Each structure stands twice: as structure tokens, then as C-alpha cells.
């Protein structure tokens, strides 16, 4: 079987506009959560909070002629893909263009554009609809623009599985490389979900925390939305070695499952199955793993269910794992969650630093693992899992190993 390595990473989120800034913030345990500023204050209630991107100027990264075609969703993906591709040193002249795939995870596309245009249509009774609405809103736009900007002509598409979208994208990209369909893939996720409509819709489900995100903690009250993108360059070990590229980690295995249960409530069996399959696919034993970047949304149901699933899979090794949720730093970026969390996992493998779980108030009897509260921990990380468990009962876990 072809081994797959990661040779480039790019990202943008509330913690920064590139992966060095993002990883530094994660290692320092800084939070990007604050009062919402994207949306006019008069529409907000309950001291709305989110992990929003600040001071972002798309013209610093994207050709001026392209910007009018882009929802923020695609802008973020282009920023992250540009960084990842630069870092990898890959170029797509000649045959490589057709031997490279692009797979981008997206939870919900074009939210800002759609809300803006529908507001004009319904509320302001506008007589004309903006002609670029469709190309900004369509879910495949981020993948298409990456292909256009970088001249990549291989299989290119978006996958969508709510909060597991990014991890499903990594899995799909890995499968195409393993199958010999391509030799490299640009994979990750993007989400631009901090709009009034999306915020209200989440609030209505009663899963949003009014104070902050406190995964696995006593008195946790729910999740906080985030936004951004993480994009990575995956290629065969052979190709990376032949180029003399810097290898960040091996993408060793993937595991996927569906709960076939409740549309919202998580399932211990579904989560455990995905983790077990990822270990199996990677040829890892539970004791090989040192770190799990948890889904850890901060809701009562997710965090206790995920804890039980980890016990179920790791048995007596479970208490020796460092299990952290980085969502209190970058927020829950839905379709981009697994991609932003990949930045944390790659940092942990490379630098031997496990980013902490912030905002921890004390133990909940239903959450009894080592969550590395408050401060990062220096420790050797040989291998790690990154968990994503979506509404709709769709689970995707990625297993990574130190190069």
C-alpha cells in the first residue's frame, strides 16, 4: 500500500491568518473567542460570542479580479491552500497537474452571500438579484477556485458531512492516492458560518454556550462557533522523499462510520467504531497513541459520549492518553473543524507540545480522562488521532504518525 505523508499546511482562523501564528496561539493556550463583530449589534442578543477572523484583507492574498466571485468561504480556502502549497514546494506544471486531486470539506456553503442577497430580496424587495450569487454560493466553489489559482486539473470536488466534513475530505483524498488515481492531493476544509441566520439557527437548538466553550469540564454549557480554513498537501512518501520535501507527519489511517441513530444525539458505538477502524487502518495498537485531538464540542452530550467511546477503544491505555479539545481556541468551525484541528495535531507531533483544553472549571464524573487543562504540555507524541463526529451521526477519524 502507498504510504501518505503531509508536506504542507495552511490555515486561517480567529487565532491567525497563517499556520505559524495559529500554532503559536494554540501552544500558548490563547483563545480567539470574543463578542461577535461580523453582525450588526442591534440584531444580536444574549451577548453573542464566536471565534471570528479579524483584520482580514482578501486583497493581500487574492487577485483583485477574483475577489468579487468569492464568498468568504472560498477566500479562506484560497488563503490556506496558498500557504500549504508554498510550504510543500510542489508545483503543478506538466504531468503533476492532472495527477493531483483537490478535496475540500464544507459544512454549509455561501452563508454570508445567501443571507445578504435574500435579505435584499425578501426584506428590501429588491427588483434585481446579483448575477454572481450562484457562483459565490455553490458548495464546490472553494475547490474550484483552488484548482483555478494553482492550475490543478485532477479530480476536484467538495465533500459535506457537517462537522466531520474535513476528516471525510482527508479520507477521500487518501483513498485516491492509495488507489493510484493521483500522487498528491490538496485536502482540508473551510467554513464561513458566522452570520445572523446561522447563529440564530444554532441558538434555537439550545446547544450554544452563553459564557464560553468548556470541553469536558464541569458546568460546561455548550459550543461556540468558529470559522476559517485548514488546507494540507498530501502526497506519497515516495514522491516526498524524491523531492527532498520536509515531511510534517504520516497520514497513517482513516476510520469512518455512521450511527444510523439519532439526527443530533451522539453515539458511543458510532464514535468508537470510527476510532477503532482508524487504528486498524493505520496498523496501530491503542498503546501506540499518545494524543487524541477530541471532537470535544463542550456540549453535555458530546463530551461524555466521546469519553465513553475513548474508554471503549483504548481500555487500560485510556488514562495514559492526552485528550484535548482545541475548540475553546478556534471555536467550532463545523466543516472546517477537522482541518483546523489538524494544525494542532501536526504541531503536537512535530514540536512535542500538546495544546491544552482551555476554560476547564473542574472534573465532571462523566468525563474522567486527562484533558490537559489550561496549559500546554511538553511530551513526545508518537502518534495521534483526530476525531470528528457530526450531526446526522456521521463519524470520521484520522490517525497520524510522526515521520
Amino acid at each position, binding site marked *: 500500500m502507498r504510504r501518505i505523508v503531509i508536506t504542507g499546511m495552511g490555515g486561517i482562523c480567529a487565532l491567525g491568518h497563517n499556520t505559524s501564528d495559529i500554532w503559536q496561539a494554540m501552544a500558548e493556550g490563547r483563545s480567539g473567542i470574543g463578542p461577535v463583530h461580523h453582525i450588526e449589534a442591534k440584531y444580536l442578543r444574549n451577548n453573542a460570542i464566536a471565534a471570528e477572523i479579524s483584520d482580514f484583507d482578501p486583497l493581500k492574498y487574492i487577485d483583485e479580479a477574483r475577489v468579487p466571485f468569492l464568498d468568504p468561504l472560498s477566500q479562506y480556502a484560497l488563503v490556506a491552500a496558498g500557504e500549504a502549497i508554498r510550504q510543500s514546494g510542489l508545483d503543478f506544471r506538466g504531468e503533476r497537474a492532472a495527477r493531483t486531486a483537490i478535496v475540500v470539506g464544507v459544512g454549509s456553503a455561501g452563508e454570508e452571500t445567501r443571507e445578504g442577497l435574500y435579505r435584499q430580496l425578501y426584506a428590501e424587495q429588491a427588483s434585481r438579484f446579483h448575477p454572481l450569487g450562484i457562483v459565490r454560493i455553490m458548495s464546490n466553489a472553494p475547490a474550484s477556485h483552488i484548482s483555478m489559482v494553482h492550475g490543478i486539473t485532477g479530480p476536484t470536488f467538495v465533500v459535506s458531512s457537517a462537522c466531520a466534513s474535513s476528516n471525510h475530505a482527508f479520507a477521500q483524498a487518501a483513498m485516491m492516492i492509495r488507489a493510484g488515481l493521483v500522487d498528491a492531493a490538496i485536502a482540508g476544509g473551510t467554513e464561513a458560518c458566522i452570520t445572523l441566520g446561522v447563529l440564530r439557527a444554532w441558538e*434555537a437548538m*439550545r446547544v450554544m454556550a452563553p459564557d464560553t466553550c468548556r470541553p469536558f469540564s464541569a458546568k460546561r454549557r455548550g459550543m461556540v462557533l468558529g470559522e476559517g480554513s485548514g488546507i494540507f498537501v498530501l502526497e506519497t512518501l515516495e514522491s516526498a522523499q524524491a523531492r527532498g520535501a520536509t515531511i510534517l507527519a504520516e497520514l497513517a489511517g482513516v476510520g469512518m462510520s455512521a450511527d444510523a441513530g*439519532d439526527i*443530533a*444525539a451522539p453515539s458511543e458505538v458510532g464514535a468508537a467504531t470510527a476510532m477503532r477502524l482508524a487504528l486498524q487502518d493505520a496498523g496501530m495498537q491503542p498503546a501506540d497513541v499518545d494524543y487524541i485531538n477530541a471532537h470535544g464540542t463542550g456540549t453535555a452530550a458530546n463530551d461524555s459520549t466521546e469519553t465513553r467511546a475513548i474508554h471503549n477503544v483504548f481500555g487500560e491505555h485510556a488514562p495514559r492518553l492526552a485528550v484535548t479539545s482545541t475548540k475553546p481556541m478556534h471555536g467550532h468551525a463545523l466543516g472546517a473543524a477537522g482541518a483546523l484541528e489538524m494544525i494542532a495535531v501536526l504541531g503536537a507531533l512535530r514540536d512535542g507540545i500538546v495544546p491544552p483544553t482551555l476554560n476547564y472549571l473542574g472534573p465532571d464524573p462523566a468525563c474522567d480522562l486527562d484533558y490537559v487543562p489550561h496549559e500546554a504540555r511538553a511530551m513526545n507524541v508518537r502518534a495521534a488521532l483526530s476525531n470528528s463526529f457530526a450531526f446526522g451521526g456521521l463519524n470520521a477519524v484520522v490517525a497520524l504518525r510522526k515521520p
Partner: protein
Amino acid sequence: MAALKKLRSCFYGQGARSSSGLQSGDYWGHFMSNVQQEVFEIISKQAKIDIGAIKLESTLKDLGVASLDAIEVIFDIEEHFNINLPNEEVDFESGTVGHLIEAVERQLAQKTG
């Protein structure tokens, strides 16, 4: 199916307020006597159980209303009485129907303040 129909009625305008199938207009003035009856009716409709099976000390969980169904019951109650029930007022784990009715009455009283 019923839930889907209800969702559609919310998206397409005025239907939402009467989504519980109850008269929402004229509770004012005698709500203290009617709140309990109306909350019972909303729960019985959502849980598809006989109204006689609902006790003040039952939790929504006891009645088989869990996860999003419970969130939907709260939404129906909010729509019916035109109030907002903050998360702190709604305890899906151990809150009883009695607590829920008290919360509704508190919100109605605040509204008239």
C-alpha cells in the same frame, strides 16, 4: 412527517404560531388556569401520548420526549405563548413538566410586567 410539515409551516410564514394546533390568541386574562392545560396538550401532541398520562412530576424524558423532540416541544410552547424560555429555565435532564409550567408562567408574568 408531522415534524417536517411543521418545519415547513415555520419557514413559509404565518403557520408557525398555530403549529401546535391550539388557539393562541385569547389566553390573556385567564392564562393562570389555562397554561397547564395548554402545555399538557402541546406535550401530548409531540409525544403522541394520551394527555392523561402526563403528570406535573413527569420529566420530558419520562414521557419519551428526548433530544431534538424536547427542543421542539419548548419551541412549540414559546410559539404558542409568544414567550422566550431561556436555556437556564429549561432542564432537559431533571426538569419536570411542573417546572416547565412555572417557567412559562414566570415569562408570561414578566411580559405583562
